[in-house]
Every structure is written in C-alpha cells, then in structure tokens.
C-alpha cells in the first residue's frame, strides 16, 4: 500500500520554527491529521491543509519557557537578602584574618584617597571665597635684565593712576596696595601686632568682603580703618567698634569705619587683619611721597577687576606698554611689560621662568592626585585579589546551592551582595579614619579642611566609587564561579578544575602584585630623595651663625634714635653679647638697587645688587666670615662710605682685586662713591635653593628696619628673652615686644619641601602597608593551597629552609620585577623634580639599592611568617586534611 507523505518543506518549517515547548505534540498531531485528511478529503486538500496549519503554527521568535516545577523567589526578596547577609557574615567571621586584611586594607586606601581628595578640593577652591574670582587679577610686570627675563608683582606707584585714566574702560575696579605686613594697632593703652595692608576704596568691593558692620565705602574717609571680625573682637570685645579711634604704628590716627568677616583659611589674604586707606599710606612717609611720580621705583602692588564684558587677553594686549611708555630713556632697555595674573592662578600657578608660567603648586596637586589614585588602586587590587582567591574555596558551597536549586542569577546576586557588604563596611571605616586623622593631616598640610559631610559631590563620588569597587571585585566570583557545574564542583575532579583556574587567574594576580610594588618602591625612592634634598639644602654653608640670633622689627617711630641706649642697656643686662640694626631681616633681602658703576665694568651689564644697610656691629652680631679685607669699624670715620661685599658680588663685577675698588652709585649730583673694604663669604639670606645674589652691605643708622641681637650663649634663651623684654618695655614702652629667631625663620623656608616630604613618606608607608597586607593574604592563600604538597615534601625529607625558599621565591621574584620597573620611573620623575633647584642633591645609586633591599626585606618578612609556619607544620596533620 502506498502511503502518502506530507510535504517535506512544511515538515521542515515546523521542525525549525514551531514553538519549542509544543513542537513534539504539534508534529505528531499534524501527522495523524494528515493521514485522516488523505482518507476523508483526498491527498491534494490534505497537503494544502498541512501546509496551511504548519505555517500558522510557526513561532519563530518563541523561546522555551523556563521549567516552573519550583517557585523562584524574587531575587531581592527580604528572605533571600537576609540569607545572603547571614552567609556573608559567617564567611567574614570564619576567616577573621582575611576579613581584617580585606576590610582594613580597603578602608585605609579609601581613607587616604578621601584625604587627598579633600586636599585637592581645598587647593582647587583656593580663593573662590571671592565672588569676583574670575575677574580679579594682580597687575604684574616682566623685565629683561642681563639677557634674563624677570617676573615680579612689584610695580611703580604711578601705574595705578595711569591704568585708571588711560585704560579705565577695561577695568571695573582698581586698587593700589602696600605689601601685607605686621603693624602695631593701638587702642587706648592696648597694643596689638597685626598683619594688614593699605588699599584703595574699591578693594572691599573687588574682594567681595562681607561687611558685618559699617559699609564697603568705609575706606573713602581719609583716616579710616576696616578691621576683620576676629581683630575687632580681640580689640574691642563685645563693644561696638564703629567710630572708635585707633593708631597704626603709633603715628597714624584712624577711625574704625567697618568690620568684615574673617577671610577663610584657603584664601591668599587669610591673614589680613585690617585694611587702611591707600591715601593715608601715600602721605605717611617721605619715600612714598616721592614715589608718587617715580616710574622706576617698583615698591607697590596693584589689584584690578576687569570689566564684565572683556577678557584677560584683551586687557593684557592693551596695557602691555603702560609702564614702558612712561619710564626714562635709560630704563627702556629693560622693556617692561605689564600683564595681569588672574586670581585663579595666584595660588596654583605662580612660578615664572624666563617670562613663562611654569606652574607652581599645581604640580603637587597633580602629584598627590596621582598618588591618591595609586593608593586607592593598590587597595582595590588587594581587595579583588583576596576576594577572588577566597572565593575559589567556596566551590563546594556553590555546588550544594546549585544542587538544592539555586539558579545562576541568585548566585551572582549573592556574591555581589557579599562584596558590596564588605565595601560598605570599609567605606564607613574609611569615613571614621578620615574624621580621626583630619586634625593631624591639617597640621601636616597646613590646611583647615573639614569632611564635606553636606557636599553632594562628596557622597556621590564616595558611594559611586564604593559601588564600583564592590561590583568589580565581586564580578569574578559572581560570574565565573556561578558557572560551575554542580556535579564537577561537588565531585573529586573539582581539583582538576581548580588547578586550571589557578593557572588561569594567577597571571593577572601576579601582574597586580608587581604593580603594587612598583608603586611602593617608587614612593620609597621618592621619599628618600625629597628628604635628601631638604637635608642637602639645610647643610649648605649659610655664611653666618644663626644660633641665638634674635630679630625684632622696628615697626613704629619710637624704635628709632635709641640704638646706643638700647645697645648699652641690653649688653649691661648680660642677655646679649652684641646688637646691630639692619635694613633687611637676616633671613630675607628687602631691597635691590641698580645704577652702580666701577672701573672696568662691562657697559652692557645691568649692575643690580642686593643692598643691605647695617650698623657697625652687624658682622659681629650675625658672625659673618671674611674672605679678605676687614669688617666695618668705628675706628675709621671714612667707613660711612665703605662697602662690604659678598663673594658673589666679586664674581659678578668681574674684578681681580676687590679690596680698594671704588664703586659709584647714581649718576646725577646725588651720586656717591664707596670703597670696598671687605669681602665676606656668601650669606644665604633668601632661598636656600638658589645661588646667593651679589650683595653690597652699607653703613647706615637711619635706613634700618630690624634690630638684630646675638643672645648670650652662657644664659638660657628664655632667661635672656625675659631680660630683653624688660629692657624694651622700659626704653620703648609704646610698642609690643615681638621677636623672631633666625633659625626658626630659616627653617620655615623648608616648610613647603618638608610638608611634601612628610606627606610623601606618609603615603609611602601606607602604600607599603597596603601592599604588604595584600601579599600577606596571598601568601597565606598559596600556603593553604599547597598544604598537601608541603606535607609530601616534608615526608620525603625537605628541610624547613628548602620549603621556606620554595614558598618565598615566587614573591621575591615578583618584587624584583617591580623594582626593575620602578627604578627608571622614579629616576625620571625625581630627576625632573630636582631640576627645579639650583642647589640639588645627587640621585646616587645607593638610594635605589636601599629601597630595593628595603622592599625585599619587607616582602621576605611578610611572606616568611606564612611560609615558615607552613614549613614547620606536622606533615601528618597536613596530609590528613580532607
């Protein structure tokens, strides 16, 4: 009998595209029906119907429905979450050491990153207290001298009016200003030494001072003063300070016309305790009165706020020649160029080299930003390494969970929630650490930062980062381990699969260890070199003795004309062995002058010298050292036109026989001649990193600002200070007794570098700590994995030393690679850093060797703890495991 077959194509269509859940019965049913149709309606119709039904039953997009033999709870259901948390908690408690390493390491890393983040935020928001932050600038100038371009903020007095009258359209506000400095404020018989400056009436508006009393117009009155809130409180207590009469430096009578809110610590003018009117300053002293029309006297500052519609570049172009057009012919060669230094660059970009902005603190912002990222990275690497290493131990748990009926998505969410839990704990710990360490960090970094509890960006960043770390660290166990076949995981061949896993994942893990130690070793090298540089500069011969050298600024007229009286009284008291006066403090140079001539001078040379006026005993007081010639002496009446010069000056002048050389100063009728009587070794008065500038020391008892005292070494400093104070109170009762010590001032010059050093070493220690934590964890993991191997080796006769070497060598190898990578990187960056300093230490090989040995020692110590423990274990016990 011939049996009719249904159309093949239709059958194939059905096979390929029918709904997978009902394919079987549909095919069967249709076959049966086809036979029935052939019998009842004939083959042609049967084929036709078969085709039609097959087409209608196609479900090309249908997917097999999941088997619904058991119910799947919602993956976020509270019961499941509670179970995940319970399992996670049990895991943490079971492996206390790992949990500690994991959470502690991550928390420390996060805390460091947060601290650095706060520091960066503070640095980048410097001066943003001022509302006109984007439009305010300091007017500066660049001049060319002896082929070099110098950039300075000191500008001449008439420039202010020049900009106001000729270029007024570009500026909204302009204000001349004196240098901020210490002044004596007197109210009744109360005296205060406070930092302040003189400015024009527009200044409070320009700097958007918040007036608590009085108005921003306060400075319009000729004899007025604006006080900061804290000073007003210190002087007047709760009383209303407005319209009270005060004295500045015991000579200028002023009336309080306003009180402004203290400027925050992260502003340039944070110490500004008072502002007095510029016009008052301009008439207060004869040299300033003279300077009013002197285009050659760069002794003042000028601040400006540009108009709302214009830009710095446009204004810069216009005012470029504002000074050049007005200076004498003889000064045109300096080619003075006026420009604006915007407020946003004041703090972070204030270094200039050859007229080009070369950064400044911004470099440290970058440096610490990178360090912060790296420390955080180290902590995250640890976290991931340990999480993944630990999770492999849980293959059995996964097998059981799967056998009981967990589906993959549940396992994934279990592992993710576990790692998120750990990260969350670490985050809270990190916040705690930050809060606790912030006072210390503030001190080291010289900041007043607070945790930005209310700043949404802080939380967004912190939580976002935690989430990311949790997800990334949890992703390996979540995605990889959850794919295990339960049978394999539960059966014996779990070992086979695990060894493959180890080989597969151990390479990235090794890379991560190398990366960690590269960072750590680089930081060690960097720290050593920063400290060496500071030490090197500190040990530089300074040319004088700063021991027991005390300096007192002569802030008011009462100080003057009492030299002999003070000297004899102080010497009689036995507190000092010598006293002198000078125009500059010993630790800084306040004046530079040009216009010197001498025989054999190169005509093209701009004869610019540091000029320091001193009294006869200055040399004895500071203990300068003579190379040749003699000191000033009261025995020679001609010494009023004698010069003591430093070695740098001799070199600069290019003279062979300096003693007796005559130097002329000035060209017109006021010109004077000086004879060099002595040459001293260079005295470091300015930056300890720069070469000493050529300097002239001249005799003068009028043009002095500082009293220098050499304390009696036979007496204790506190005893001497008490005696000195008594003498000063008697001789100059109207001035507060304010003194400084030269060694402290000198040490302050290293503050910036030392701050960097302290921070860098702090971060280096933390980085190493974190790396070691990670290594410790990994080592113990490896040891645990090789327990059986170690047991077998011991049974076969391996010694403890053999086993120790076996287990340590892998890690030592990794650290050696890291050292190899770190060395050139560190060399490159530190070499660049040192280039900034004229006087710099050398990068010698032993620094690298020492950090290499250091890193290796730490590694061995860390790993040895685990490896020796493993090597000492009784093989019977280790072989009996499982």
């Amino acid at each position, binding site marked *: 009998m011939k049996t009719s077959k249904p159309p093949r194509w239709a059958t194939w269509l059905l096979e390929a595209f029918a709904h997978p859940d*009902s394919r*079987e*019965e*549909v*095919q*069967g*049913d*249709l*076959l*049966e*029906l086809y*036979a*029935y149709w052939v019998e009842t309606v004939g083959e042609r119709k049967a084929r036709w*119907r078969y085709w*039609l*039904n097959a087409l*209608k*039953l196609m479900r090309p997009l249908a997917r097999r429905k999941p088997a619904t033999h058991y119910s799947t709870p919602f993956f976020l259901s509270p019961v499941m979450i509670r179970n995940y948390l319970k399992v996670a908690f049990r895991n943490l408690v079971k492996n206390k050491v790992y949990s500690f390493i994991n959470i502690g390491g991550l928390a420390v890393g996060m805390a460091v990153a947060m601290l650095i983040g706060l520091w960066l935020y503070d640095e980048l928001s410097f001066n943003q207290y001022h509302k006109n932050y984007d439009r305010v600038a300091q007017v500066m100038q660049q001049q060319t001298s002896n082929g070099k371009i110098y950039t300075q903020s000191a500008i001449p007095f008439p420039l202010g009016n020049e900009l106001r009258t000729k270029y007024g359209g570009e500026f909204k506000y302009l204000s001349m200003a004196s240098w901020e400095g210490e002044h004596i404020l007197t109210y009744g018989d109360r005296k205060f030494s406070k930092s302040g400056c003189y400015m024009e009436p527009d200044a409070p508006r320009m700097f958007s001072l918040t007036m608590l009393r009085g108005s921003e117009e306060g400075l319009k009155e000729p004899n007025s003063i604006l006080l900061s809130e804290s000073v007003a409180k210190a002087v007047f207590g709760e009383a209303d300070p407005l319209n009270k009469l005060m004295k500045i430096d015991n000579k200028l009578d002023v009336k309080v016309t306003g009180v402004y809110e203290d400027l925050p610590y992260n502003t340039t003018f944070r110490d500004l305790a008072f502002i007095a009117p510029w016009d008052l300053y301009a008439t207060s002293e004869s040299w300033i009165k003279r300077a009013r029309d002197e285009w050659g006297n760069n002794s003042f500052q000028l601040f400006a706020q540009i108009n709302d519609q214009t830009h710095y570049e446009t204004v810069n172009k216009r005012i470029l020649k504002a000074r050049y057009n007005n200076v004498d012919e003889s000064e045109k060669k300096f080619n003075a160029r006026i420009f604006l230094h915007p407020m946003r660059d004041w703090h972070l970009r204030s270094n200039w080299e050859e007229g080009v902005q070369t950064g400044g603190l911004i470099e440290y912002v970058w440096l610490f930003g990178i360090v912060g990222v790296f420390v955080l990275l180290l902590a995250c690497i640890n976290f991931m390494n340990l999480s993944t290493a630990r999770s492999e131990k849980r293959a059995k748990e996964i097998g059981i969970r799967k056998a009981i009926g967990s589906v993959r998505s549940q396992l994934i969410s279990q592992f993710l929630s576990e790692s998120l839990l750990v990260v969350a704990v670490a985050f809270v710990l990190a916040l705690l650490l930050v809060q606790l360490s912030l006072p210390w960090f503030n001190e080291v970094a010289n900041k007043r930062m607070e945790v930005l509890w209310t700043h949404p960006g802080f939380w967004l960043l912190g939580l976002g980062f935690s989430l990311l770390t949790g997800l990334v660290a949890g992703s390996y166990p979540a995605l990889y381990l959850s794919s295990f076949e339960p049978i394999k995981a539960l059966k014996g061949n779990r070992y086979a699969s695990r060894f493959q896993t180890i080989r597969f994942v151990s390479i990235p893990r090794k890379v991560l260890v190398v990366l960690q130690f590269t960072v750590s070793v680089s930081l060690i090298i960097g720290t050593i070199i920063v400290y060496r540089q500071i030490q090197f500069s500190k040990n530089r011969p300074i040319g004088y003795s700063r021991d027991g050298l005390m300096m007192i600024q002569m802030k008011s007229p009462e100080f003057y004309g009492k030299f002999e009286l003070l000297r004899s009284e102080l010497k009689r008291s036995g507190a000092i062995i010598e006293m002198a006066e000078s125009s500059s403090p010993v630790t800084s140079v306040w004046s530079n002058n040009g216009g010197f001539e001498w025989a054999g001078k190169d005509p093209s040379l701009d004869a610019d010298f540091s000029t320091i006026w001193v009294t006869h005993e200055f040399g004895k007081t500071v203990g300068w050292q003579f190379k040749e010639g003699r000191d000033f002496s009261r025995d020679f009446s001609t010494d009023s036109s004698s010069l003591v010069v430093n070695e740098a000056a001799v070199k600069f002048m290019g003279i062979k026989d300096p003693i007796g050389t005559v130097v002329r100063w000035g060209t017109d009728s006021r010109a004077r001649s000086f004879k060099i009587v002595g040459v001293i070794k260079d005295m470091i008065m300015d930056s300890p990193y720069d070469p000493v500038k050529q300097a002239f020391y001249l005799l003068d008892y009028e043009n002095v600002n500082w009293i220098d005292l050499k304390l009696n070494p036979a007496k204790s400093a506190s005893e001497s200070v008490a005696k000195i104070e008594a003498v000063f109170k008697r001789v100059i009762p109207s001035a507060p007794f304010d003194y400084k010590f030269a060694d402290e001032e000198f040490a302050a010059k290293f503050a910036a570098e030392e701050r960097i050093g302290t921070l860098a070493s702090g971060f280096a220690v933390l980085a190493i700590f974190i790396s070691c934590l990670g290594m410790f964890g990994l080592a113990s993991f490896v040891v645990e994995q090789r327990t059986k191997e170690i047991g077998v080796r011991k049974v076969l006769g391996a010694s403890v030393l053999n086993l120790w070497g076996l287990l340590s060598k892998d890690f030592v190898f990794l650290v050696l690679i890291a050292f190899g990578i770190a060395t050139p990187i560190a060399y490159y960056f530190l070499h660049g850093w040192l280039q900034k300093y004229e006087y710099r230490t050398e990068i010698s090989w032993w620094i690298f060797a020492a950090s290499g040995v250091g890193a290796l020692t730490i590694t061995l110590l860390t790993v040895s703890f685990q490896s020796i423990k493993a090597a000492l274990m009784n093989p019977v016990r280790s072989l009996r495991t499982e």
Partner: protein
Amino acid sequence: MKRAFLGEFEEVVLLTVAVLDESAYGVTVTQEIEQKTGRAVGFSTVHTTLQRLEEKGYLSSRMSGATAERGGRRKRFFTVTTAGRKALVEVKHIREQLWGALPPQTLQLMGN
C-alpha cells in the same frame, strides 16, 4: 474572585475536552468539533486555543501515548481542571438565567 471569561470558541473547545474525557488531545478535539458542529476548524486554531486555556488554568495537560502513526511522538492529553469546570458551569448558569428571563411570546416566536 476574578470573573471567568470564556470566548465562544474557547467554550466550545473546553466543552469538547470535557466530552472527550480521557482521550482529549489536538487531533480528537479537532475532529470532534468538526463532526459535532459541522464547521471546518483549523487544527492550528484548536491548538492555540487549547494552549491558551491551559495558560488560563482551565485545562491541565500531560504527555503520553506515542504511536507509530505519529512518528513515535507523544500526544499532549488535556483534562479539564476544577477551575475549568467552574467556568463551564458558570457560563451554563448565565445562559439558563437569560433563557429563563425570556418573555413567553418571544420564546414562542423562536419556535419552542
């Protein structure tokens, strides 16, 4: 409780399954409907309806009874669930209520 809804064809299919009792699967249901109602129904329509009824919970199914003429493939046998029976009773009840409410003259006009 949600009110059961049965379409006209669904009702027919569900009833047919109930009628066929133990032997209801795609082919028998299709043939039964054809014979009883005299209307040509496509197998695909019946199949889809059966599945929909199962989804609604009125039918349950199990696989068995492979025969040679089906190429060794199993059949999916359907049985009416309690919910299905309830739904049928409810539909019948509504119909009867409506019939009962017909005015006698209309009933006469219909030839009863």
